[in-house]
């Protein structure tokens, strides 16, 4: 494990949009290049600062969806209705546009590749983004830790990384993906649409006894209820790490 207390000089740097792809009707992945940084761990986020022509500026934090070790990182942004920043990222920002960025940061909600423990990832909506970063990182570093993702989305149309998750889970017997739909499920789906429940998190092969590290990310209410379910299932508080978006998801 690298020293988590290694001094970090975090400064605002310029990042430029170099690529972008649509994930769903309301979400987009943006690839940025530019900032020189060190110490990235999957689960980390960046602070983003956008400044309008008049000088007004606003800051947000976004989870990193993927990153290489040097100068490139990806964010996946879900457009929030009436949001101030997310519509810009999803609809307006074009290749070559710049922004200020500070990071990567957030070792609390990060997966450390050296740890052999099984990992249980529970994501609600775009809370899947940092969890996807962990799934990608696990493969990149060649970890054999078993991972299970329980991913709650409103409907098929809102599932991020759908093809990639299907590909990865079908070719990797140590990656399990359980998709939960809360509003509408495809016809014949094994599970009727409903909120995440104890049944979704309890699984014979994934009891609390196997002591997985749990990472839970989503809106406030989602994280709160999943944390309670995990505690009720016997997971130790110290093994549960959470990250919340707040009420708006922005």
């Amino acid at each position: 494990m690298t020293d988590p207390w290694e001094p970090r000089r975090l400064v605002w740097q310029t990042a430029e949009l170099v690529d972008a792809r649509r994930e769903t009707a309301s979400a987009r992945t943006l690839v940025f290049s530019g900032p020189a940084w060190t110490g990235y761990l999957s689960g980390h986020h960046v602070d983003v600062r956008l400044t309008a022509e008049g000088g007004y500026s606003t800051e947000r934090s976004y989870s990193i969806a993927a990153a290489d070790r040097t100068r490139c990182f990806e964010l996946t942004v879900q457009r929030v209705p009436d949001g101030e920043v997310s519509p810009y990222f999803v609809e307006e920002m074009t290749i070559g546009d710049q922004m200020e960025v500070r990071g990567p940061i957030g070792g609390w909600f990060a997966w450390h590749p050296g740890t052999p423990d099984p990992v249980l990832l529970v994501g609600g909506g775009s809370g899947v983004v940092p969890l996807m970063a962990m799934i990608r990182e696990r493969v990149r570093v060649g970890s054999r830790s078993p991972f299970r993702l329980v991913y709650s989305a409103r409907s098929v149309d809102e599932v991020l990384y759908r093809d990639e998750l299907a590909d990865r889970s079908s070719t990797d017997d140590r990656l399990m993906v359980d998709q939960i739909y809360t509003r509408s499920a495809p016809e014949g789906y094994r599970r009727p649409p409903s909120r995440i429940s104890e049944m979704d998190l309890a699984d014979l092969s994934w009891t609390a006894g196997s002591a997985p590290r749990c990472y839970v990310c989503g809106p406030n209410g989602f994280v709160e209820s999943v944390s309670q379910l995990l505690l009720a299932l016997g997971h130790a508080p110290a093994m549960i790490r959470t990250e919340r978006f707040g009420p708006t998801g922005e």
Partner: protein
Amino acid sequence: MNISDDNTTVELDQSNALDGNAAAGAFSAALGVDASMIDIVCAECGYRAPFAEERAYLDGPGTTLCCQRCASVIGRVATTPAGTWLSLSGSESWRLPSFAGSSPD
């Protein structure tokens, strides 16, 4: 909830709260280490929690961290033209926990 903090009264609406993860960048930039894993003891109620699990308010000015349990202000950071201001007066202690394999703090 009304928080009396020095001479000001701040209306803290919990529904606006993010968790400490969202404040980690501002505090880490001021402290020079990753703030998210620091264990903080609230001076008001004595509750101990990791930075990342406290409540954060980013609406400004500056970034405010409040106790997860009693909502008292435990730390603030703000950058002005004169420099970056860091106030930790609402907290009793900040501990950088040692981890296996890392140098002791």
